[in-house]
């Protein structure tokens, strides 16, 4: 069989009312690869996952998962994949153990095997003690972990995870990261993950596609993507928009590329550490000293900014590392 876990060609998904959620995307994911879709709200991540996991039919284009066509053989695909959708899918009146056993039985496990598998998974996600409580009483993090374990019951070859850590605290987020990293590295599970978090894509994925407004705007490993940006990124913020405008004029000869977003000037330069002092001196002389500045190697946000002209996350979140005061 092919060694491509997922092959997508020219996938288009249009909803009623002419909502063009996915507008012609193509990509491939190899067996055993950890692949991430990185994109903001409404980019089309969940829609893509729902098409790939047989919940939605493509409007046009072809999608093959584990060698089966989504339109022709959805049942074969369902046996090979595990899916954690963005919203957890849990019946709150059952206990964690009952849900896991039910899931195993629905995938054809015998009663006995289903019991064992449920216990194994409860141990794995550290929910053994709460296994016999109603899921309705679980905390958000416990639900997420249970939801994730539900999609592992039948030991799927390919895992689809739609924003698995959104809204979780760092403890639960790290627990899930460890979990899926182990699945990928030790069990060779192919992983397709979507996220809005740069760090998540950066830390986990072998390869990333950046998706925005239904289109893939950049693809590659985290390193490759960052290289496309250039060497260094300098962020300068100013009191007023006009100051940023003026600073852009003043500094234009030193930069390869720039972006201007409300009072913030982002410069892409070859040798940031060398240029920065001169730049600051020059701005001072012009009477427009920056109120804060930051020099860093490029992040995925810079990649995103460069290909879309917008930031992926709030500036405040990203600017935590390497702040240099003037």
């Amino acid at each position: 069989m092919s060694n491509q876990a997922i092959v997508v060609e020219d996938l288009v998904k249009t909803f009623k009312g002419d909502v063009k959620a996915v507008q012609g995307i193509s990509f491939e994911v190899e067996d055993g690869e950890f692949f991430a879709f990185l994109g903001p709200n409404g980019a089309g991540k969940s829609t893509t996952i729902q098409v790939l996991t047989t919940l939605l039919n493509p409007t046009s284009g072809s999608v093959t998962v584990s060698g089966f066509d989504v339109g022709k053989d959805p049942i074969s695909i369902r046996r090979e994949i595990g899916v954690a959708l963005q919203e957890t899918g849990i019946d709150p009146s059952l206990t964690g153990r009952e849900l896991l056993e039910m899931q195993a039985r629905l995938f054809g496990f015998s009663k006995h095997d289903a019991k064992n598998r449920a216990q194994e998974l409860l141990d794995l996600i550290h929910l053994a003690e709460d296994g016999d409580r109603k899921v309705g009483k679980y905390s958000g993090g416990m639900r997420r972990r249970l939801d994730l374990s539900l999609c592992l019951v039948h030991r799927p070859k390919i895992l689809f995870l739609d924003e698995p850590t959104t809204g979780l605290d760092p403890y639960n987020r790290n627990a899930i990261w460890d979990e899926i990293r182990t699945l990928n590295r030790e069990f060779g599970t192919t992983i397709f993950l979507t996220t809005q978090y740069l760090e998540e894509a950066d830390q986990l994925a072998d390869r990333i596609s950046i998706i925005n407004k239904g289109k893939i705007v950049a693809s590659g490993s985290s390193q490759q993507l960052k290289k496309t940006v250039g060497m260094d990124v300098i962020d300068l913020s100013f009191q007023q928009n006009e100051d940023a405008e003026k600073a852009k004029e003043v500094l234009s000869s030193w930069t390869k590329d720039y972006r201007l977003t409300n009072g913030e000037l982002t410069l892409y330069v070859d040798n940031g550490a060398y240029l920065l002092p001169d730049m600051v001196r020059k701005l001072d002389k012009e009477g427009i000293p920056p109120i804060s500045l930051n020099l860093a190697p490029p992040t995925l946000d810079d990649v995103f900014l460069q290909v879309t002209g917008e930031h992926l996350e709030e500036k405040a979140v990203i600017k935590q590392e390497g702040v240099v005061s003037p």
Partner: protein
Amino acid sequence: MNQRSNFIIDTYLMTKRSTIAIFRNPFIFIPNIMISLFFLLVYQAGLSGISNIPAFEGASYLAFILPVSIVSGAIGGSGGAGQSLVRDLENGYFSRLLLTPTSRVAIVLGPIIAGMIQLFIQTVLILLVGLWMGLDIAAGFGGAVVVILLAAGFGLAFAGYSVGFALRTKDAQASQAGTFVFFPLVFLSTTFVPYELIEADWLKFVSKINPTTYVFDGMRSVLINGWEAQPLIYAAIVIIIICSITITFASLSAKRAVNRD
């Protein structure tokens, strides 16, 4: 593997799950039983005197009102099937089930069968309370079985309606609102008095076209008169007709709900 045994296992699992959910949430079935028993006790206590009127032909009012209690319980019990599917849709469990190789039919059938189990237990309970209150079933044990069968048939029709409505609206409030047909169905009929005693012409007319009337008639015939063919045949025909309609409606809505476009 063989398709049929998978389908049976799937249906069994889905039914088991819904049954657990019903009995773990006493708020789902206790109020329903309460309302049924309330009808039985209160109407019997308050209205039984009117059975002295000749139009009742000497029937006990208890036997006359018992079908109202049973039918209202049946409607409530089977209406739960739709509610439970709406809950599945809202908490995402429906999608989780769709992502398994489980038969789509089993996913919808499970709550319906669970609703029927609930209905069966309720009907038996009401009959037992009736017997305890002094009910004398003219057609004997077989008559009790007929009452249960008619309740199940009518309940199935209502389950089809509630499931169809739930899957179409996918919304808890809307499908809750849908169960309000309960009132015209139960009360615009020969609910409290025989047809001959209904005053208003419009109510006479509505009770003629209300399928519930024929279910009441069928049940009353075995409870009060013994074995009579005509009311039972009418009741059976009416149930078959409304079941075909509502179950078709449910299947069409189900198809739409799992439709992937």
